[in-house]
């Protein structure tokens, strides 16, 4: 149905375009090019990388890109909600780090000599998962409460919580005789649950967390599009006062968006804990910048009230393609930071342009 309507609207666009005068046509073409500049650049970059390093389009490389996308998707879906509310969440990466360390510490093998909690038996996976989701939810609750109650900007609130969480991670890793060492020696049931083979494509294993990420994406799509909470979130993001006058509980909506984001960080931490299999205080570092970049590339506007789950998925996917591609080109890790920053700046400028043209 949506594909049909998409074709119809595309048909309408072309029929209207053919009726336009010369200057209007030029302006329309300019708008289309500039509004989709980031996608065009990324597609051109993919073509360039594929020509230079043909292995970039091999099955193992594509599976790797999909796996990385799946691992980073839940955090981006969480931050996307905060951006829809014209906010952001820079505590996300540290929240992922904390939850990853908690999940890893609860699910270390009993026989591991450097076990963080030596007397702790092997816990069921669902207990650890619920624990990290709860920790994430508490972080989100604190963020949401301060943003909604005191009308503080999410940037400053989440900056504070980021520092608090980092301190908490460092202290957590000092428990017992661990002395800040990385957490490894994970229980095989945990690593198998997350990294086990879902199926194979051309002999390359697709990990299970791709499926979990898909399920989370579907759940988030339903929450954003088919629930009253989702509609309220877009209403508050578009115009908080108008939403308030319309009877939307703005406080509850903002808090719930941040709690939901926190739960997403918990799930990301659970997946990351097993995926990297060695959690330290640096786990989750800068994850939020990747997630914010992915959201902005995917069309989640900082103006508020605009964004799609599909856009976020595409944003994360394109960003991972670029990062993997640049690795294939042997671009230095230092340069990657500059490129990431530029991508965010350009994406924000494009977002701003769209807003000004609409106005």
């Amino acid at each position, binding site marked *: 149905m949506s594909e049909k309507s998409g074709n119809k609207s595309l048909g309408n666009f072309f029929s209207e375009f053919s009726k336009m005068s010369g200057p209007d046509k030029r302006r329309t073409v300019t708008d289309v090019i500039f509004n989709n500049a980031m996608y065009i650049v990324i597609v051109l970059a993919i073509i360039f990388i594929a020509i230079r390093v043909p292995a970039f389009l091999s099955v193992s490389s594509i599976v790797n890109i999909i796996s990385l996308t799946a691992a980073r998707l839940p955090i981006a879906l969480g931050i996307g909600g905060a951006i829809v509310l*014209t906010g952001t969440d820079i505590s996300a990466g540290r929240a992922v780090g904390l939850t990853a360390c908690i999940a890893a510490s609860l699910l270390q093998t009993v026989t591991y000599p450097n076990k963080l909690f030596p007397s702790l038996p092997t816990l069921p996976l669902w207990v650890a998962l619920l624990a990290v989701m709860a920790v994430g939810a508490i972080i989100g609750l604190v963020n949401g409460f301060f943003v909604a109650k005191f009308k503080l900007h999410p940037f400053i609130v989440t900056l504070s919580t980021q520092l608090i969480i980092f301190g908490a991670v460092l202290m957590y890793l000092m428990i017992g005789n661990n002395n800040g060492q990385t957490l490894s020696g994970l229980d095989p049931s945990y690593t198998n649950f997350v990294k086990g083979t879902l199926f194979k494509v051309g002999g390359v294993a697709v990990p299970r967390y791709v499926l979990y990420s898909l399920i989370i994406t579907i759940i988030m799509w339903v929450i954003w599009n088919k629930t009253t909470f989702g509609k309220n979130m877009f209403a508050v993001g*578009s115009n908080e006062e*108008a939403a308030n006058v319309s009877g939307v509980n703005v406080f509850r909506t903002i808090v719930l968006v941040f709690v939901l984001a926190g739960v997403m960080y918990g799930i990301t931490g659970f997946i990351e804990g097993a995926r990297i299999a060695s959690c330290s205080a640096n786990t989750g570092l800068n994850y939020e910048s990747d997630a914010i970049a992915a959201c902005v590339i995917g069309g989640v506007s900082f103006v508020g009230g605009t964004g799609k789950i599909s856009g976020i998925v595409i944003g994360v996917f394109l960003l991972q393609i670029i990062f993997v591609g640049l690795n294939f080109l042997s671009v*230095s890790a230092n*340069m990657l930071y500059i490129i990431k920053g*530029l*991508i965010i700046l350009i994406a924000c400028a494009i977002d701003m342009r769209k807003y*000004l043209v609409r106005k």
Partner: protein
Amino acid sequence: MKNQTQNTPNKDNIYSKVKISVKALDLIITCGIALLCALIAVSVS
């Protein structure tokens, strides 16, 4: 799906006080992309 693209004008949003023309933004975006491409080209060579 409508709720995803509702664009109720929000007079208090973060861009409402921005005094910048679309042309200036086009220039910024073009320069940014050119810089991005140049950086990648320099890194690869």
